[in-house]
């Protein structure tokens, strides 16, 4: 089996991109929320429970610069989500054999 890094770049409040990623990613995969996907990391939204319920299945990251750009630097995140910078993004790509971009 290929170790996979999934990226999600759409808000889960507007699109079903995150839903499909969570449905079809293999347990143990890494998921990185980028661009408008970062809204999925926030605690207290109507989408937060979707991710919270799957924290045991996936390692979930969110891209810090995309959070900061949206004024979300201090915003509370769903427990267990790790913030990474661009260097961390590169590390994630290097650590996994393949990548799947959910658009």
């Amino acid at each position: 089996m290929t170790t996979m890094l999934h990226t999600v770049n759409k808000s889960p409040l507007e699109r079903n991109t995150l839903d499909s990623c969570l449905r079809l990613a293999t347990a143990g995969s890494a998921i990185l929320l980028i661009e408008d996907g970062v809204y999925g990391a926030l605690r207290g939204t109507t989408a937060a429970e979707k991710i919270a319920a799957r924290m045991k299945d996936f390692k979930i990251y969110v891209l810090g610069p995309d959070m900061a750009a949206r004024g979300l630097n201090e915003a509370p995140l769903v427990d267990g989500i790790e913030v990474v910078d661009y260097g961390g993004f590169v590390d994630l790509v290097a650590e996994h054999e393949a990548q799947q971009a959910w658009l």
Partner: protein
Amino acid sequence: MMEEDDFDPEVIKRFMFVNRKAPYGTVYALESLETVLISAAFDQDVSVVFLDDGVFQLKKGQDTTGINMKNFSPTFRALEGYDVEKLYVEKESLEARGLTENDLVVDVEILSTDELREIMAAQDVVISA
């Protein structure tokens, strides 16, 4: 000496194209299909998946004369001629849109979410649109 990134025709990689968008509202679907056709020239192990609104790309009876866009749905029937024979549709996505296999322009393999997840995890390269 062979550099790591050089194209080696002896190495067959598993390429999966994942289509999640309806056909004409954005250019994703057409561009994805063109990429599939290009990839077919490289004799790789290619599969094409349709899920979420991507299943609408395969709907029979598309007539685009009124919107001045190319109806590319017949091209899916030509993929077999390019040795692209693995067309997968997620059952859940199809049913959620009130469609059945009979509504599609081409023969596909209908897969459950679990079956599709397993095939996705076995790919070397996944290209999504």
